[in-house]
Structure formats: structure tokens, C-alpha cells
């Protein structure tokens, strides 16, 4: 299974991504030269501490970063979209093996370079996102049905019109209604009795059906009734299901999941994880799963990338990274995870704190906290290099610099 994945072409490739933030104290290098691929259908786990830049990395796929104070300083995020299946309009049918997509690629775009209008078309349709706290990520004053409906109105206008039994060349107020771009007076036009009003009701009916179907996918009880509820009337788990339904409504190629279970109870967490896993496997969606929870990432990911202070320090298949962590930071993280056989009081913490990312010096970012550090680490910046075909690490232990000593694991005495 893994081998097959290795050959799979990436759905998105991040190359040397640099995202900086302007702050009072200077320019913060929040993400500083990050490169990785997300392969077709895989789940890539992105782990790291709070503030290491993992969320910023995730958000840059959708360019959901406030442009001042944020600076997109360089690099690219190339996204290879699929062709949406013509037969089922992305809903999933036999012709496309239930994925809603046709084999092969449509085109490649640099997500950081396209116009905001093009970006907008990709958001929610080809790349979707689940947020950390579903209580905050849902608009408190709109019924959840209306919120999910917006996705269809934005991206599935044609299908909506077809489903409502209207001719595909429908124009005017009703099309504007179905694409959520009303003009002044459309509201009155569509609510006055007459053929237009009947058409609007048909579109609304089809819309409700699409929303109910999307909700049903996430195994919520009674989706029809749920649509009229407000977010505050639902439990945290239910809200996150709504978020997932909303994110997967258009069958995206890539799902960015930014700590989707952090705000939830542990019991709910397991069910949500299972749900994401199931939906993803059925629809062959790729997932970038961002989390600070190592054991969780281990459970859900095919591959894992470890981020530290704006850099990826280690990336590889989950099996390899967990069996044989090479970077001292990865090792430290794993030692900090309690296992069933960890004796009480023996939990290791990494000494020190994450360095300030204002104008970082040319040095390994982990220098100062690393138990194996040498002079080399403080004057050279290690880059990510492969140590096996499926594991890379940015550390001088495995890739000695041209000059200078080489740190070894043996030097650790504590």
C-alpha cells in the first residue's frame, strides 16, 4: 500500500515557502523555507509545537493570511487540480469510482501567484479547510444549513440549476440567486408571487437537498432538521461534523485539517478522526493534518513532517519516522509523549524554549536546545536531505557540513 503511494504524483508541492510577519520588534520568520509534497490520496501529518508555523503553512494553501502584517516572502505552493467528473458533477458516481474526479490532471497552478478571483474559485471547491474550534468557525447568527448552502451557491451553480429542473441557460435574477450574487432589488423580484418565485422555491428545494446529502455523509442524525439549527444549539462534536460536511461538500482534492479535534472531548475526538479517515478513503481526498499531538498523527497519517521554528526538520513515512527518528528534536518530542510503559515521573521535556523568530541567525534553529550540538550547528544552517528513499532530515548528524565537527548521538551523557 505504501509503495503505491510513493509513486503517486503529488497533489500539491510546497517549495521554499517563506511567510513572514511584521511585528513591533521586527520581521518574524514564521515559516522560513519550507518544502514538501502532499501526495495523491495520502494523509500528511504536520506536527510541531505551538508557534512553529504549522498553521501558517496550512493557511498559505488558501492564502488565508492577513496581508499586512503578513508578508509572503517567497517560494511557491503548486497545486495540481483534477478534472471534476462530468457525469456526476463531483458528487461521486460509478464512472469516477465514487471520487467525483476523473483520472488525470487538469492544470497546475501556483496558489501564491494566481489572482484572488482564481483563488476564490479554488477555496472550498478544490481545497477546503477544517478549523480548530468549530464553535468559532461557524457563523453564530446563521442556521447551519444556510452556511453549508453557501458552498454550493459559490461552486455548484450549474448543478443546482440543473437539479431544480431549470434550463442550463437560465439567466437573470434566478441565476444570480443560485450563485449568491444578488443585485439590488432581486430580493423583491424573487419574493413577489409569479413564475420567478416558483423558480426560486425550486432552487431552494434543490439546495436543501444538496445540503442534506452533504450532512448525511457525516452520519449526523436527521440532517433535514439539523439544517435549521444554529451552531450554539449543537454539541462540539456535531459542530465539527457540520464543518466537515461543509468542507467536503464539493469533494475537494485537498483538505487542510488544522487541529480539528483539539477543541473536542477525547471520546468525540476518536469518532471525528474515524469520520475524516472514512470519508477521505472513500473519496480519495488528500489531507494535510496539522496537529501538535504526536500520537494522534501517528494514528492517522501516512507520512509525517515535523516542524520546528518555521522549518521542517524531518519528514518521512509515519512508520519510518516513528521507528527511527533522526532529528534530535523529533527524538525529544517522542520522548515527551507518555506511553503505556513510561514510568511515572520519567517523562522527558526538551530543555529551553522555542527561539524568537525575529531575524534568525544562520544556524541550526534547534541549536541551544539540542543535546548533541557542536560549533558547526551554531554557524551553519542544515538543510533537509534524504537519508533513505522515504525519509529526510535536516541535521548535521546525518549530513555533516563540509567543514566543522559532526555531532553524534554518542556524545549525549545525560
Amino acid at each position: 500500500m505504501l509503495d503505491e503511494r510513493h509513486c503517486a504524483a503529488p497533489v500539491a508541492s510546497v517549495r521554499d515557502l517563506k511567510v513572514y510577519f511584521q511585528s513591533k520588534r521586527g520581521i518574524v520568520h514564521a515559516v522560513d523555507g519550507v518544502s514538501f509534497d502532499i501526495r495523491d490520496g495520502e494523509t500528511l501529518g504536520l506536527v510541531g509545537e505551538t508557534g512553529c508555523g504549522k498553521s501558517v503553512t496550512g493557511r498559505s494553501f488558501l492564502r488565508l493570511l492577513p496581508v499586512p502584517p503578513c508578508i509572503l516572502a517567497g517560494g511557491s505552493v503548486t497545486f495540481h487540480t483534477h478534472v471534476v467528473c462530468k457525469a456526476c458533477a463531483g458528487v461521486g458516481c460509478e464512472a469516477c469510482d465514487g471520487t467525483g474526479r476523473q483520472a488525470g490532471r487538469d492544470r497546475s497552478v501556483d496558489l501564491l501567484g494566481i489572482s484572488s478571483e482564481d483563488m476564490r474559485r479554488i477555496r472550498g471547491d478544490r481545497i477546503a479547510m477544517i478549523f480548530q474550534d468549530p464553535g468559532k468557525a461557524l457563523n453564530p447568527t446563521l442556521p447551519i444549513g444556510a452556511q453549508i448552502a453557501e458552498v454550493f451557491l459559490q461552486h455548484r451553480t450549474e448543478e443546482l440549476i440543473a437539479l431544480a429542473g431549470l434550463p442550463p441557460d437560465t439567466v437573470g435574477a434566478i441565476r444570480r440567486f443560485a450563485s449568491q450574487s444578488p443585485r439590488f432589488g432581486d430580493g423583491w423580484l424573487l419574493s413577489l408571487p409569479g413564475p420567478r418565485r416558483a423558480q426560486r422555491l425550486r432552487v431552494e428545494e434543490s439546495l436543501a437537498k444538496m445540503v442534506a446529502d452533504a450532512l448525511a455523509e457525516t452520519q449526523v442524525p436527521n440532517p433535514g432538521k439539523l439544517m435549521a439549527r444554529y451552531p450554539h444549539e449543537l454539541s462540539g462534536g456535531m459542530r465539527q461534523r457540520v464543518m466537515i460536511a461543509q468542507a467536503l461538500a464539493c469533494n475537494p482534492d485537498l483538505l487542510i485539517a488544522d487541529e480539528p479535534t483539539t477543541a473536542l472531548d477525547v471520546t468525540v475526538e476518536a469518532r471525528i478522526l474515524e469520520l475524516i479517515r472514512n470519508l477521505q478513503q472513500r473519496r480519495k481526498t488528500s489531507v494535510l493534518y496539522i496537529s501538535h499531538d504526536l500520537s494522534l498523527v501517528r494514528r492517522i497519517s501516512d507520512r509525517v513532517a515535523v516542524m520546528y521554528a518555521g522549518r521542517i526538520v524531518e519528514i518521512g513515512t509515519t512508520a519510518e519516522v516513528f521507528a527511527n527518528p533522526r532529528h534530535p528534536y523529533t527524538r525529544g518530542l517522542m520522548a515527551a509523549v507518555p506511553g503505556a510503559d513510561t514510568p511515572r515521573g520519567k517523562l522527558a521535556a526538551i530543555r529551553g524554549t522555542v527561539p524568537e523568530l525575529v531575524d534568525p541567525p544562520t544556524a541550526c534553529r534547534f541549536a541551544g536546545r539540542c543535546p548533541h550540538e557542536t560549533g558547526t550547528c551554531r554557524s551553519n544552517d542544515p538543510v533537509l536531505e534524504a537519508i533513505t528513499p522515504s525519509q529526510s532530515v535536516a541535521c548535521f548528524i546525518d549530513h555533516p557540513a563540509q567543514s566543522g565537527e559532526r555531532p553524534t548521538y554518542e556524545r549525549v551523557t545525560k
Partner: protein
Amino acid sequence: MQLRDYILRRLMVLPVLIIGVSIVVFTLTRIGGSPVGIYLSHEMTPDEVAEIEARFNLDKPVWVQYLYWVRGIAMGDFGWSGVAAAPVADVFPLKLAATMELAIASGLVALFLGIALGTYAGARRNRLPDHVTRIVAVSGASLPQFWFGILLLIIFWAHIGIAPIGRSDAAIFASIAHPTGLYTIDAILAGSPTALWDAIWHLVLPSVTLGYGATAIVARMMRSALVEELQQDYVDAARAKGLAERIVLKRHARRNALVPTVTVIGLTFGFLLQGTITVEIIYRWPGLGRWMADSVLRGDQATLMTYVLFTSVLFLVVNLIVDLVYANLDRRVTLGK
């Protein structure tokens, strides 16, 4: 359930506050001495004075006098206005209509303009339109209305000579019936474009004077509420769905920012109510405010008491309605103790 308790409690506190206000108003006027003076003349003998005091119950203990006053109000007797030379209750509705027309016109303009301005600024935070709006808002809160009104009069009335003074042209005003007392509405009801034009033309400058500060209050609140909302996760989530920025702003952020903005309507209303006093003086507007100012200067206690009591009750009721609407609107609001 919880909301109903809240409404009930607020409704129960309202009469307590109204009684409190009436006591304060009554006490206040008695501090200035017995109101018997307005009924007296120099030639009266002590016996005559005593007789008048007895007639108006002024020889009774103060708290009994208070009860007589309250009973009078309950029966629609607010006393005699020396300034208007008529019972307060007779003059009040006419003056009130004139003031309300001015306050409502200013308030409506302020509400729409303030929301538009606040949205415009909040969506462009820390850019030029935002800074300009902030200057407008802060200066609006600092502007003495009586001075602003005079400046407008100097320019548009004294120098350019296009703006009128007063509420209406007497001849045109007399030409139509006045069932509502609101000149603009009456003009529309009478179907007289001349009267409507006259009404609006007279309304423009006073409304601008009164409305500027109110616009500033609303714009300021709207701006900060919008800025607050735009930082919420659901705004990013809406963008992540692929919604156009216009829809994110209008359907999500602005809609929710309007909820806290509702709370300043009470404040704005108080502001407008107070502002009518000076604005009516400057523009010779025959409303409550000018009547009050005249009464204050000429010791017309009955008018003063009625006016303070009336505006306070109105202020309380408006604030109550605003709070209830807010509690109802905001599904996130946790009702305080």
C-alpha cells in the same frame, strides 16, 4: 426561558426607576423653594397667600404634595405653564411632534450614514478611509452642537442666504391640515409637494447639526464591532469556502457587527434628545427643547418637571427596548445578572 426571566426582571425594575426619577425631579424643584411664587402678586395679604397655598395643597407636608403631583400626572394634569400661558398637557403634544420630527430625521440619517461609514472604515482598517472616519467620529463627539449650528447658519443663512430658519413657512404651514403633527408626514398626507418641500428644506440644516454627532457615535461603534467580527474565525472560514470578499463582509461580518451596534441606539437617542435643546434654540424650532430652555430661564417649574420626567421615561423605555432587542438578536449573548 432564561430570556423570559430577563425580560420580566427588566420590566419589573422599570416602574421602580420611573418612581425614583419622579422623586428626584420633585425634590429638585422643591429645593428651589415653594412654587407658590408664580401664583402670587405683591399686593396679596398673608391671608390670601395662605388661601392660595391651601388651594394648591402647598400647605401640606412635602411627601403629600408629591402624591398630589403624581395623582395629577396620572389624571393628565401636568400643571400650568407660565411660558406657554396654557396647561402643560395642552401644549406638550404639539411641541413633542416638532421635536420628534427633528430627532427622528436626524436619527434615521445618522443610523444609515453611521453604519455605512463604520462598515467602510472597519473593512479598510488602518488605511486612509479608516483614519478619516476616525477623525470624523472623534470630532463628532467633541463638537459643541450649538457652535456647529451657528457655523452652518453663518455660512448657509447669513452669507449664502439659501437656508431658512424656523420649522416652516407660516403660510404654507397653515395651508394644510396637521393630523399627525409631523410636518413632513402631514404634507405627504395632504398631497402637497409645496408643503413637503417646505418641511424638508427647513429640516435639512437642523438635522445635519443634530445628526453629525449621532452619526459619529454609530460609525464609531460600527467600526469597532466590524473590526472585532472580522477577526473571528468564522470570517476566515467563510473565505475558506470561497465566498467573495463582498459576501464575507456583508452577509457574515457586517450582519453580526450590527448586533452590538444596536446597543448604541439607546445612547444615540439620549444624545439626540439632549441635542434638540440647543439646536431648537439656534434654528428657532418650535419644539420641546426650546420650550424647556425658555422655561428654565423663566422659572416655569411645571414645564421643567414634565419635560425632565418625560424625557427620562422615554430614555428608559428606549433603552429597555434596545436591551431586549439585543438580547433577542444576539444568540451568543449571555444574560447578565
